[in-house]
């Protein structure tokens, strides 16, 4: 019997598949398609202190083997996430969820993490310092080792739950930033967020996205994500949630060989609401074909 279970900072999950933040809402929409308790966990939509509407439309553009989004962290705000979304999630998901938290100041990150720390349903806090679609926040904290470490320290001071820092690929040396987060006390690293890109409409000769740029995700970014997971694995000893373009069980295994202890599935959920389910169901076959009996054994196996 194939063993798919993995361990993230003491959180044992039945398989490594974690739908990525922003591609799975707060879970209940997908519960209409399948029993989401089959997931290892999932990371809920990036949440800020205040409710946010996000960017004007159009927010979505297509790319070869992927898509761009410029949502701009639309979310109902931490109060409603705690009072409405988590109780609603409890009806359909009995496992610990990953809380994705974003912010525009150290105080805001700390405030939201302190609030979410009290929620029993939350197993891990994933701190988003990598959103490419908002100004003066999000990604600006994730682009230097110093600011990434400062957010890590601010958050670690107010929570007892494992803290995973979600990093941006739009940097010169992601391993250096991951190492700074580890030194500041991070329990794990999530990577990658989306890559900044754009499209231009040939008829109007204007950018497709109202935000001009957006974040590229989907199979197009998989080799980049894999390379960055490889580099971060070499630089840190804390667990990695690897993500970026994962769309098959073989991609999951490749990502784990590069160093991921668990694997996020993002844009694939947008293309096909059943994507994460299909990947989980086909993992045992891929493992058998590749002679893997215990998935946790292959983490970083390619190094």
């Amino acid at each position: 019997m194939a063993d798919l279970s993995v361990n993230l900072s003491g959180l044992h999950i039945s398989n490594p598949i974690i739908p990525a933040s922003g591609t799975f809402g707060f879970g209940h929409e997908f519960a209409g398609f399948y029993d989401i308790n089959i997931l290892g966990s999932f990371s809920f939509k990036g949440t800020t202190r205040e409710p946010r509407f996000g960017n004007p439309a159009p927010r979505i553009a297509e790319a070869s083997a992927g898509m761009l989004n410029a949502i701009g962290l639309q979310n109902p705000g931490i109060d409603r996430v705690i009072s409405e979304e988590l109780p609603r999630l409890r009806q359909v998901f009995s496992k610990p969820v990953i809380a994705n938290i974003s912010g525009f100041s150290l105080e805001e990150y700390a405030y939201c993490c302190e609030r979410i720390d009290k929620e029993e349903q939350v197993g891990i806090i994933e701190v988003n310092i990598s959103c490419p679609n908002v100004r003066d926040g999000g990604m600006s904290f994730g682009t230097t080792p110093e600011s990434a470490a400062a957010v890590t320290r601010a958050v670690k001071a107010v929570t007892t739950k494992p803290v995973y820092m979600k990093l941006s690929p739009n940097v010169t040396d992601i391993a250096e930033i991951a190492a700074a987060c580890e030194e500041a006390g991070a329990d794990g690293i999530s990577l990658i967020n989306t890559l900044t890109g754009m499209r231009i409409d040939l008829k109007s000769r204007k950018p497709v996205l109202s935000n001009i740029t957006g974040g590229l995700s989907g199979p197009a970014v998989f080799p980049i994500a894999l390379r960055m997971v490889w580099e971060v694995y070499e630089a840190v000893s804390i667990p990695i949630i690897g993500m970026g373009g994962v769309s098959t069980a073989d991609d999951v295994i490749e990502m784990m060989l590069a160093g991921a202890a668990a694997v996020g599935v993002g844009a694939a959920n947008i293309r096909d609401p059943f994507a994460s389910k299909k990947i989980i169901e086909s993992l045992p076959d891929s493992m058998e074909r590749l002679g893997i009996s215990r998935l946790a054994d292959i983490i970083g196996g390619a190094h």
Partner: protein
Amino acid sequence: MKKNKFIVKSNRLLAKYTYEMELKGDISSIKRPGQFIHIELDGFFLRRPISICDWTASSLTIVYKAVGRGTEYMAGLAEGAELEALVGLGNGFDTQKSGEKPLLIGGGAGIPPLYALTRKLLENGKKVTVVLGFNSADEAFYISKFTTLGANVIITTADGSLGVRGLVTDAMDGLDYSYTYACGPEPMLKAVYDKALTDGQYSFEERMGCGIGVCMGCVYRSKTGYKRICKDGPVLEKEEILWQT
């Protein structure tokens, strides 16, 4: 909403750029006219949202314009081709609010969902007037189908090559109606909204990601909070609409 396999039963050119495709498969999740189907296409990452024109017990019809690479690919699909699609998405039109003499106004690619709406309203015993707006006669489609259903049909063309010369709003003067249903490009919706004398429902369009209300890609700021066009829409009540421009 359901994800199902469909077989292309027919796919034919109706008018300039405009195709009609009949898809055979499980349509049980379609509840209302104005809902849409989200079609997966080989070689394209995002699905294509297309409004449902009409349906029977075992098939549905879409009428779409081939105006981009995805819809051009669709236009090339032959009978027997298999497609996967999410079906029965979106809220659709509420036929209960129509009153006795509803007015339906469609422009171009916004016309197809009004076909099933017309059929339902006529089945409910309503006296239906339909205004169909096209750029020119060579882009016109479905006129005789609407007439055959039993609706009072008024045609407008921007160049005057068929029916009333002008915009759909030019045909609204003097009409006696109890409720307004509209689907078409946003400038048309705005013009109808400004001119309509009754309450109504307006079907919007936006670039979509998931189609199931998760990704927040197609969000519209309404008077009553944000609306996901794919899930809370595409049909909005007149009093909810907050024009962005």
